[in-house]
């Protein structure tokens, strides 16, 4: 057994603005199946955090249970982590965010963890617009228990054993749009060129950001007839646009045909440059985003890329007007001002 990742790295690895190489953002060696789409997503997260030059200790990664939820062990080993109860990652993320609003909350979940056991939690975290990235590693099956159809498996999709799924799939991006999500994107684990700028934009987005990533399960759901297999997804990809993430104060260098380009300025001054491929679609119009999703479904296509964004959004902290100072940095006298303060407060309501 020699499954050990060597310590040596390329001697001329580039460094980011913090002077870190990508190595700083790596995690342990994955124990998922060889070729799992989830590993590609982990690598895209590493690359995104490296490119954004985030300080690893400013990030908290959270997950539930499942193949997907194991992945936080495989990236950002120098960040905070919380591997929670099955489907309960949103509650933990909400609690953590309330205690310390200064961290970047990076939630990782799967189709079972989100669309089945965690559905109740998911819909509430969307409607509360908690400032977090929520990545769903969506493979349409329960990989840890040998590949049964999950709630996101498409109707008519064939399993490895040959049985056909009879039920309608839960479409997480459409659901999120319906619930008022402020950032919705869909991507494919085999397309890092698209996935990385989306993750970067999601991190920069000041509210809830959902990225539903189709991530083939090579062991149980990569067979002919499956709608979440590498080949099927590649054949049915229909991108809304190409995406370039343009960091703050950097010039836009990619030139596209006039009229097809849309530039979306993000909250912190960085921007997303989209080269639109889909017609009749406006990423800042919820209705057109929902229409585009429904149309793609009718056409049997998988719409990827940025689906919807509301760059200026009101997140949970703004809505409930929390203190500007994170609670975890306050001392006891601030957090518990005493009975006199309570009396005064109660007096206001008399």
């Amino acid at each position, binding site marked *: *057994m*020699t*499954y*050990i*990742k*060597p*310590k*040596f*790295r*390329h*001697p*001329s*690895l*580039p460094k980011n603005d913090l002077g870190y190489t990508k190595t700083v953002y790596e995690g342990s*060696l*994955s124990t998922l*199946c*060889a*070729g*799992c*789409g989830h*590993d*590609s997503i*982990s*690598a895209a997260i590493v690359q995104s955090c490296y490119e954004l030059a985030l300080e690893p200790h400013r990030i908290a990664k959270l997950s539930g249970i499942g193949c997907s939820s194991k992945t936080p062990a495989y990236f950002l080993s120098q960040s905070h982590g919380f591997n929670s109860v099955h489907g309960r990652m949103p509650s933990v993320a909400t609690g953590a965010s309330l205690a310390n609003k200064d961290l970047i909350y990076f939630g990782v979940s799967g189709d079972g963890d989100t669309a089945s056991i965690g559905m109740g939690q998911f819909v509430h975290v969307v409607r509360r617009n908690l400032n977090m990235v929520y990545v769903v590693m969506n493979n349409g099956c329960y990989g840890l228990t040998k590949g049964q159809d999950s709630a996101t498996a498409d109707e008519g999709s064939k399993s490895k054993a040959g049985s056909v799924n009879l039920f309608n799939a839960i479409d997480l991006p459409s659901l999120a749009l319906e619930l008022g999500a402020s950032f919705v994107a869909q991507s494919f*684990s*085999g397309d*890092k060129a698209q996935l990385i700028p989306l993750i970067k934009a999601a991190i920069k987005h000041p509210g809830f950001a959902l990225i539903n990533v189709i991530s*083939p399960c*090579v062991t149980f759901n*990569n067979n002919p007839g499956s709608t979440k297999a*590498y*080949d099927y997804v*590649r054949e049915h990809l229909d991108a809304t646009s190409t995406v370039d993430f343009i960091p703050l104060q950097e010039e836009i260098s990619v030139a596209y045909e006039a009229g097809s380009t849309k530039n979306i300025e993000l909250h912190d001054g960085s921007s997303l440059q989209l080269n639109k491929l889909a017609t009749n679609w406006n990423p800042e119009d919820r209705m057109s985003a929902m229409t585009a999703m429904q149309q793609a479904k009718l056409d049997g296509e998988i719409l990827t890329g940025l689906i919807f964004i509301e760059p200026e959004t009101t997140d949970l902290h703004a809505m409930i007007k929390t203190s500007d100072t994170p609670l975890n940095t306050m001392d006891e006298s601030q957090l518990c001002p005493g009975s006199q303060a309570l009396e005064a407060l109660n007096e206001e309501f008399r």
Partner: protein
Amino acid sequence: MEPTQTNDPEYYHKVVDCQYACPAHTPVPEYIRLIAAGKYTEAYMVNWESNVFPGILGRTCDRPCEPACRRGRIEEEPVAICRLKRVAADNKSDVTDLMPIIPSVKNGKRIALIGGGPASLTVARDLAPLGYSIDLYDNQNKAGGMMRSQIPSFRLPDSVLDEEVGYVLNMGIETHFNTYVNSLKEITDKKYDAVFIGTGAPKGKDLSDLPGRKDASANVHIGIEWLASVAFEHTNKIGKKVIVLGGGNTAMDCCRTSRRLGGDQVKVVVRSPFSEMRASEWEKEDALHEDIPIIDCHVPQSFVVTNGKLVGMNFDKVHAVYDDNGKRKLVSTNEAPVFIEADDVLIAIGQENTFPWIEKDLGLAFDEYGMPVVDKNTFQSTNEKIFFGGDAALGPKNVITAVAQGHQAAISIDLFCNQQSLTERPSPYVNLVSQKMGIHEWSYDSDVVTDNRYIVPQVNKEIALKDRKVEVELGFDGLHGYKEAKRCLNCDVQTVFTENKCIECDACVDICPTACISFTFNEDDENTLRNKLQVPALNLSQDLLISAPLPTQRVMVKDEDVCLHCGLCAERCPTSAWDMQKFFYTTSKAGNQCQ
């Protein structure tokens, strides 16, 4: 760019940097793995097949493999390949039974070898098992050539030399020792089917024009002649103050030998700057370790003789100036001459070929520098029956080059004696086999250790300097040999990519510790492609492995430069599009061709 043609054996051969750099193309990783497994005899025989003198080379080789070693591009120092070879030689069991069987019925062809050095002995080794009758002529009383006369015993004990020379001579070689061949015609008149000349570069350069050279001649010696006379025990002492002129390995051998024969103030004086001396780094280190100062940038001006006796030398101090083409010029600093005291001076400033014994009417052409005109591939001279090899063929090089040339000359002689074309060289023997044993299991140790290079222990300096026959290096013991062997990256276990199995899942890209693998759109221009990889591939001496177009129209491009051969790409590949396959490559020897 076009997909890489991996069915050309030279592609994978080049990935095995050490083997590719070795003139004899010894399968280095193969024998290093055997050493790690404690199979010293097998490791020795892999070497012996390829380079004939593993014990000798394991102590004295110029090691072109080590600067080439991939490990040197990943961390500070390469694997101690040369000294591992010695571990195999030191720890092997009796190999006599493993030597080729010499046919008792000869093939009727007679070959003469002139000179008993590494080139001639290699020719003998390759031809004797094929049934050739071989006569070897040498002017000394033992074979070995410069390995015996110029390499001091404290670097190469006689016992090691005698053993390995013996393996060849015991193949029924007819030796004619103490026989100085002073006429090639006398040899050719004996109606040999072919004659091989491996007489080396026996003439040491002198400084005949330097003032005082004649008057000082009693105490001025030519380095290689002096070393030979020490080796054959004609000389056993030298003055207390010794100057050694020259900056090559012979100079290092001269100064260190002087320290052992009574020289207690030995200095090396060299024209060039220290960093540009021809001697190997490790030989310079060994000289410095024996308290021998190396004085650089001093050009000899004159020998100073008082009352008919040498008292020292004057030197002109210089500094190096480089023109736009990087060509060096030594310019005098115009300071007063530097006087250095000396009882004896050894001149080790290079050596030359000389062929006064070859008659001009034998059909042998010589070039303007007095070197025989020799084909660089076949080593045949302009007289079709006469072949050259070693320093005698293309000028002074080293033992391993002489061995490589000896192998080629032997192939040529065999082809020539069978009336076959000499230009159609036999192909190398190659093999490519998967090393997969199961999940996470390979038949080689794929983990990459982080150990730094181990230092070879040496004998106590006081003891070493007392006796020129005490070997300075003790060699690695079994444990350190194992640890050093584990540093080898197994570059011969190749990353083999099969396009039509690839599903482009990126698993290999994500896992590769050294970011060697990229999936990208192809480019016509190599430089553009090299620059758009995950980490730009700027080491142009290392090739790119480029696949045919994949379903997404991208190609897989792997930069071979710093691949650790850890096998993780193959381990993470769900479809076995990547596989680790052991590439075995050996150059052909005489007798391997189709007949």
